[in-house]
């Protein structure tokens, strides 16, 4: 209980600081660079969540333990939510920085693909009724999808120039944002925020998978009593 209160306070402080902390002047971005404290950690969280989802998927394939599947879906749901948050915040920011909501920048494309993959993942799950089959097939799909994602890293630079801060083609020369040249305040707050988001993920993930497992147990119990 105590650690949740502390986590709440911690995130509240980070959120407040994100607006007020002096970050120095960054050419081409200015105050808009403050999005880094929210947007990048959301993206980070969704990637971790998807990765954990895949790991539990692989674990399910080996163990055939339905709890592993529940954990896998729970993590995918959280990942999807934060992937969506990343897309929306990024898109609003892009409107002000690049002039339009969507530019097919490499990173916009990658996040879009992640949304598509996990959109397809949930559609696949809803199209299968048998629990074991649902769990197996969605785990296999998430692995197949996951192994193709890294290809974007190699493909994007060949095909499109990047607009996103930190990409090679960044026209305004802001260069990689997360470097050790970054303003020290900014760097500390950024990493603190990453840590905070990771903890938030662990908390939601734990809560979500626990409640789903309990739900299953209760349903099983009701079923057994009806049987007897």
């Amino acid at each position, binding site marked *: 209980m105590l650690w949740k209160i502390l986590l709440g306070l911690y995130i509240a402080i980070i959120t407040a600081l994100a607006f007020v902390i002096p970050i120095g002047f960054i050419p081409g971005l200015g105050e808009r660079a403050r999005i880094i404290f929210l947007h990048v950690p959301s993206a980070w969280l969704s990637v971790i969540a998807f990765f954990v989802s895949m790991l539990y998927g692989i674990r399910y394939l080996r163990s055939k333990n339905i709890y592993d599947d529940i954990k896998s879906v729970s993590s995918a749901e959280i990942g999807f939510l934060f992937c969506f948050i990343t897309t929306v915040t990024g898109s609003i920011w892009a409107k002000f920085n690049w002039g339009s909501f969507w530019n097919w920048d490499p990173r916009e494309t990658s996040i879009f693909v992640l949304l598509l*993959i996990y959109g397809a993942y949930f559609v696949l799950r809803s199209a299968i009724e048998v629990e*074991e089959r649902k769990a197996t097939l969605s785990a*296999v*799909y998430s692995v*197949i999808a996951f*192994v193709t994602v890294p*290809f974007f890293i190699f*493909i994007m630079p060949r*095909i499109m120039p990047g607009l996103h801060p930190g990409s090679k083609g960044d026209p305004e020369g802001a260069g990689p944002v997360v470097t050790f040249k970054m303003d020290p305040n900014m760097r500390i707050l950024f990493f603190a925020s990453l840590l905070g988001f990771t903890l938030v993920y662990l908390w939601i993930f734990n809560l979500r998978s626990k409640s789903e497992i309990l739900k299953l147990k209760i349903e099983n119990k009701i079923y057994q009593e009806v049987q007897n």
Partner: protein
Amino acid sequence: MLSSIWAIFLKDLKSELRTRYALNALFMFVVVTISMILFSTAGEVVSGTLLSGLLWVVIFFSAMSGLSRTFVSEEDRGTVIFLQLATRPSVVYFGKLLFNFALIFGLNLFIVIAYLLTMENFKVKSFDVFLVGLILGGIGLASASTIIAAIIAKANTKGTLYPVLSFPVLLPLLMTTINMTQLSIEGATFSETIGHLRILISYSAVVIIASYLLFDYIWKE
């Protein structure tokens, strides 16, 4: 092992030639799609770059209407057990993969001929780049669609699910091949596209290895 894979391939090929479930429908599908492009662009000057993109739209959707058949027909007719009791899962996978290679090569050949005949502005300058892109693209397309076909064959809404699941997985491949086709129209030399070739080859290799490792889980419950 190899002869068993070949036997599965021959069985599917013979079955297809005899029933023509996929072939006839695919043939008409390509004709319809290309006519659709022609109608919607009638009287306009369409650039070669745009046509290269549209070429892969035709290829993608044709593949999506034909490549799932090898698995879906086994599942629908209940012949899955026949194969499950006759050989190892990996043999079935590679047999079906081989069949889909054959199908996509036939399909691509037909689409490209139809395309070259009907689209005036589609002039390929570097034929080697174009051809290699088409062949490696076809291999990549078949490898990803084969495993996804095996997945959707077990689901309820097979038809609509197939492109939905395949598209995000195929996107890196399609972006590369579209770009390669555009380069071939612009007259790029073969050596300029070595990077693309590396991506295409490693994409297929990664997908086939992952599929091989995961197929057992899909094939038997």
